[in-house]
């Protein structure tokens, strides 16, 4: 399994390198710093990622704190559920939602300056502020009840409470959260592709796409891929070093009851603003879709074909990803059993850090490797499925890993003693405790694959398209109204598939 993983990741890179060495292609030149275009692209990648991170995480600290200070807030669970939505909303749908609010015909138009760094930041904050809130909120919930009581008794004011009680816990997880969001923004593709607006706002990821799709310069694509890989590896290593990453939960438990007086309205205001920021674009998109050419759009057979393709890719990628993740984790568990803890950790790491390799590069590399042997365009969907399955692996490991390790620690010896293995072990021992994280993993990977624009943008066409690609194509043809309808359809499909898979596989939350 590890070998296959390495092959899937490294072979495409090798394929691109080989292609760039062929006559007719520009040779690979690693001295990127001497190229003004590459320097600009790298600088912009880092700059927009840094700005996006700061604009997402700093307000998220205040919003998470506001939620923690208002445990009795009405509709609290609903609001926190809303903050989970961006996890499952496809990037290209978010783009449409952002345009819907901040575009020239939107509720808060910012005109042409939407396309460029402004639009990119708006979309990134939409994704990452709620994520940061959900990652940081548990830190307040980890504060022992007695510390809050002590703080009250000692007469601490709000600043002193933050300094002595809240900040010590927050500072442990903050670097990990910052780095995670920085990485997500650095590798962002669909948002930058659609809202970037031009060469001035090109990141490394988009530049790879442009090199392959428009310039067909594999050498430049490889160089950019290596740059991206280098940047991502650096961030990944920093993250591991500072690792105290809180798990992303779907269910947030009820926090300790504190009494907060004067700042109650301030906290309410913060939560309201954050809710509007997240909810307004989606609401606006829905309204625009209902106002748009619904009949015409829904009567287009290509839309339904794209829907079927989207669903097939999503479900297939999820199944493949979860199967691969399962075997990887089983292998990691067996290594740990043999006392090879370091090797076990490396295996987990391999699965978790595969996302540092740009999916575009993997997809194109596969294309290059396979094209001498098969009709590659008839292999578009398998390639897209394979790449998305690979990209979903870190989520599978994050969801399933802890539960599997716990299950293994608790029951492995008992199963050995009872000679319980294979299907029976899975059915009676593993399935009951693993079905919830399994359901979450499958649902997450499915919607991520369904909403992906990366690899399909390289190879797709009007004949072989998904809903995400269709939105991009409609935007490119200035069919904004149709794109809005398609975006809402994709959104509803993702939400429906997520809820269905999580419930059907994961079971009821209180079961």
């Amino acid at each position, binding site marked *: 399994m590890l070998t296959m993983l390495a092959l899937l990741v490294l072979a495409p890179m090798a394929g691109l390198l080989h292609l760039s060495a062929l006559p007719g292609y520009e040779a690979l030149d690693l001295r990127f710093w001497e190229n003004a275009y590459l320097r600009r692209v790298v600088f912009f990648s880092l700059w927009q990622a840094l700005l996006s991170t700061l604009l997402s995480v700093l307000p998220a600290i205040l919003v998470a704190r506001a939620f923690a200070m208002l445990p009795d807030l009405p509709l609290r669970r609903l609001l926190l559920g809303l903050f989970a939505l961006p996890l499952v909303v496809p990037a290209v749908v978010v783009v449409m939602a952002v345009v819907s609010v901040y575009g020239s015909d939107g509720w808060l138009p910012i005109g042409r300056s939407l396309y460029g760094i402004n639009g990119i930041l708006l979309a990134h904050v939409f994704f990452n502020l709620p994520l940061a809130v959900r990652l940081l909120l548990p830190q307040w919930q980890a504060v022992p009840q007695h510390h809050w009581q002590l703080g009250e008794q000692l007469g601490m*004011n709000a600043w002193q409470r933050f300094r002595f009680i809240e900040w010590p816990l927050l500072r442990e997880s903050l670097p990990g959260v910052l780095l995670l969001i920085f990485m997500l923004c650095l590798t962002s593709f669909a948002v930058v592709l659609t809202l970037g607006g031009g060469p001035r706002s090109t990141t490394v990821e988009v530049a790879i796409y442009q090199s392959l799709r428009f310039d067909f310069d594999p050498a430049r694509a490889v160089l950019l891929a290596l740059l991206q890989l280098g940047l991502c590896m650096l961030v990944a290593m920093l993250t591991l070093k500072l690792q105290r990453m809180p798990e992303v939960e779907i269910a947030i438990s009820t926090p300790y009851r504190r009494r907060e007086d004067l700042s109650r309205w301030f906290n309410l205001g913060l939560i309201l603003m954050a809710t509007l920021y997240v909810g307004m674009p989606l609401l606006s998109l829905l309204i625009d879709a209902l106002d748009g050419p619904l009949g015409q759009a829904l009567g287009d057979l290509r839309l339904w074909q794209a829907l079927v393709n989207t669903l097939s890719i999503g479900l297939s990628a999820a199944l493949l990803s979860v199967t691969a993740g399962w075997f990887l984790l089983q292998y990691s568990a067996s290594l740990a059993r043999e006392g090879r803890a370091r090797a076990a950790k490396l295996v987990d790491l391999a699965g978790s850090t595969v996302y540092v390799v740009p999916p575009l590069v993997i997809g194109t590399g596969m294309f290059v490797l396979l094209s001498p042997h098969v009709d590659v365009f008839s292999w578009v969907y398998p390639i897209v499925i394979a790449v998305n399955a690979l990209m979903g692996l870190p989520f599978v490991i994050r969801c399933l890993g802890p539960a599997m390790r716990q299950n293994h620690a608790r029951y492995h010896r008992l199963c050995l003693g009872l000679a319980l293995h294979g299907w029976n072990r899975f059915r009676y021992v593993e399935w009951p405790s693993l079905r919830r994280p399994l359901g979450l993993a499958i649902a997450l990977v499915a919607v991520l694959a369904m909403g992906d624009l990366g690899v399909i943008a390289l190879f797709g066409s009007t004949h072989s398209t998904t809903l995400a690609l269709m939105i991009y194509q409609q935007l490119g043809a200035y069919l904004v109204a149709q794109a809005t309808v398609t975006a809402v359809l994709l959104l509803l499909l993702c939400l429906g598939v997520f809820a269905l898979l999580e419930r059907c596989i994961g079971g009821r939350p209180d079961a």
Partner: protein
Amino acid sequence: MLKIEGLEFSYPSEPASRMHFDLTVEAGEVLSLIGPSGSGKSTLLSLIAGFLPASAGDIFADDEPLHNLPVAERPVSVVFQQHNLFPHLDLYTNVALGIDPSLRLAPNQIESVREALARLGLESMQRRKPGELSGGQRQRVALARVLVRRRKILLLDEAFAALGPAMRAELIELVKTLVREHSMTALLVSHQPGDASIASARTAFICEGRVAALAATAQLFAQSEPPQLRDYLGSK
């Protein structure tokens, strides 16, 4: 002196099980509270400290009403079973917070922190963090903070439950000495009847949200009423 009159409280999730407390504890006394889990012992302490709002009744400390005061203004110090100290702060700072949470201390206040730590045998460990101490030492630091706060009422909520018998006895004796020296009024919640025997001349048995029995400690342990007391002590 601590006086509790008709103090009432019920948890929102259990409105039917209303608690009702009447109690008087003299200055210089350590009153032990024993009873089964969930009987309301810790709830009573939380009501006195102000962590929970009573629905009715009064609390007086030396005839001064407490029940309408915010937590910080009540003359109360609490020592919990754990989480009494902030783990990222050294011992000196943990104790100094008891004087002023802004940590801007006058020279005499700085000296009183040092004296309190010395009184509890911790003067050489001022710069250590709580994680470097044993459980008993951590509870001593909490008591040092109680000393510098100079509050009239001391509440100990299973403060010594995690310690071994010898350490428990030592710290209970220390509490008795501090309470006597500073004319404090103390309530000690414990699951160990032995702690009550060491700590208190009087012990209250809390059951189903009420003071079901209150007597001299030895007498309480010998009596057979109420039946819940008998069941709790496991006596025949």
